[in-house]
């Protein structure tokens, strides 16, 4: 299934159409005909289990993997036809540090900018500014070997911004980071978006995908299974939103009759047995909050009173598991 989402107000920062990648000697395609568009200024998350094809897709987008077929443009440049120009407009924050260990932290930034043709005064200015913004000022003269994992990750982000790219690719940006470092990286990603930079990230972390991304593509076995905003993806999952209600029924009414009256409103109604009074759980698709009014009306008609409401939203994880299955891989 190919999910196409073309256009958008800001125009396309990344356009992938019918991308296939088959490694020689492998029985199946690593990427099996995917298409999607990332809008300018958007944070786009590629979510999928290990081996889903996320990293291969990112490799093609960043000119490091040659596509078997299909076309990919990044910042308006066909990455296969003109990788050199594409490289000048994109940058990559890799999953594992590939910093130049013969250089200091600051020299890593300055030389990266030099590779990209940034003038001497400008690259020095940017290096100092970025070191400060990423909480590394004072540590610019250190060898990168002395850096902790979190500091290295911040330096990788700084390096990626040195040549003012239009699209930044982050591969598993917070894997292996402590919670503080993770939040710090998330804040920087939001800043990038606020500054108009397009961000494409891969992750298998549901929280990361749901909190950071404007839209999420869920990949498995080289295919794109779903593509939408995190909210729309969870809304579309049938029967996974819940509304728990506490009811004080009228004298002479029965629990069964109340539940029967509520049944037409939801996909399924269950009595929650551990509660002291009458508590029911309504399973439904879509927005649970919108059902509070109708439920209240239905109870009012029976002269019952709604005394408590709790909304259970499905998470992206539910969507993910329903699409990719539960078996280990």
């Amino acid at each position: 299934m190919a999910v196409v989402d073309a256009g958008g107000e800001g125009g396309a920062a990344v356009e992938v159409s019918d991308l296939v990648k088959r490694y020689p000697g492998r029985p199946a395609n690593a990427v099996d005909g995917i298409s999607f568009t990332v809008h300018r200024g958007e944070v786009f998350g590629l979510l999928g289990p290990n081996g889903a094809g996320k990293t291969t897709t990112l490799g093609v987008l960043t000119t490091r993997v040659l596509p078997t077929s299909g076309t990919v443009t990044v910042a308006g440049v066909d990455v296969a036809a003109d990788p050199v120009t594409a490289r000048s407009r994109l940058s990559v924050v890799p999953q594992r540090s590939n910093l130049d260990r013969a250089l200091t932290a600051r020299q890593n930034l300055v030389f990266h900018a030099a590779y990209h043709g940034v003038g001497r005064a400008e690259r020095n200015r940017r290096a100092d500014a970025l070191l400060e913004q990423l909480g590394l000022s004072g540590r610019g003269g250190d060898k990168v070997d002395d850096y902790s994992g979190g500091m290295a990750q911040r330096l990788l982000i700084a390096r990626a911004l040195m040549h003012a790219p239009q699209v930044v690719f982050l591969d598993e940006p917070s894997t292996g980071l402590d919670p503080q470092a993770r939040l710090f990286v998330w804040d920087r990603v939001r800043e990038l978006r606020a500054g108009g930079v397009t961000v494409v990230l891969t992750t298998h972390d549901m929280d990361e995908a749901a909190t950071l991304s404007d839209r999420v593509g869920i990949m498995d076995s080289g295919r794109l299974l779903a593509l939408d905003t995190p909210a729309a993806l969870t809304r579309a999952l049938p029967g996974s939103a819940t509304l728990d209600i506490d009811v004080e029924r009228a004298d002479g009414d029965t629990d069964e009759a109340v539940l029967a009256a509520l049944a037409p409103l939801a996909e399924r109604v269950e009595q929650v047995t551990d509660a002291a009074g009458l508590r029911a759980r309504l399973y439904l698709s879509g927005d649970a909050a919108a059902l509070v009014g109708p439920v209240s009306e239905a109870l009012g008609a029976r002269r019952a009173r709604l005394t408590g409401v709790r909304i259970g939203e499905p998470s992206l994880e539910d969507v993910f598991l329903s699409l990719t299955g539960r078996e280990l891989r």
Partner: protein
Amino acid sequence: MSTDTAAPALTAGAGAPAPRPPAVGRAFRALLWRDVFVTGRELVPFLLQVVLQPVFLLFVFGKVLVELGFATAQYSLVLLPGVIALTAFLTALQNTAFPLVIDFSFTKEIEDRLLAPLPTWLVAVEKVVFSLLRALVAAAVMFPISWWVLGALPVQRADLPVIGAFLVLGSLVGAVMGMTLGTSVRPNRINVVFAVVLTPLLFTGSTQFPWQSLDSLRWFQVVCALNPLTYVSEALRGQMAPEVPHLPLWLCALALTGFLLVFGTTSLVGFRRRALD
């Protein structure tokens, strides 16, 4: 490091359309400058690494054995050009082979260069040019050391252009052979492969003997003819010790050019294979 103060500068200039097509020449020079910069900072360790072995070779075989009467003074004339050729050739070879295995397989440091705005093959060419520079420095340092060890240096000013040209050609062949090796060897085999390749290269390069005098050991002569180092040694010997039998310069140039074309191709193919999936 509050988020509020971080916001403006983080994306300063980012996201703007690229003003001009990428400057490939500048990128190439920046890559080369990075390598020269790093070597310049570690010049002494670098020189120790590359000249210690040839210096001992020269000292023991060209000086000690001669003093002890096991070799004639003429032997040091045979040896000196060979050792200088060896220094340049092996320095270039090792400088592309080892770092590339480590870069591609372990540190991945090369990735930032591969994402620089220049064609992938130029990243490989930069490595070769840098290896050439290192090899020439190592060879140049060998001249005064040789003079110091042997007490004489049979080089005329007029010989220098030809010696220089063959050192360049020989270093280039060494560099592309090293790159071929570095991009084809599996990282877990690196120790074995280098032992199996380097030692034979060291002893079949006509460094310690004139190739033509191997007539009586025909099979070994054939083996030595397959080693590109032979032609560097022979060409240098032709300039520095013309009275010793040696191969003609044109033949050495032809052979080295052939090796350069073959290994140049295999090195670029190998590099591309490792750089792009």
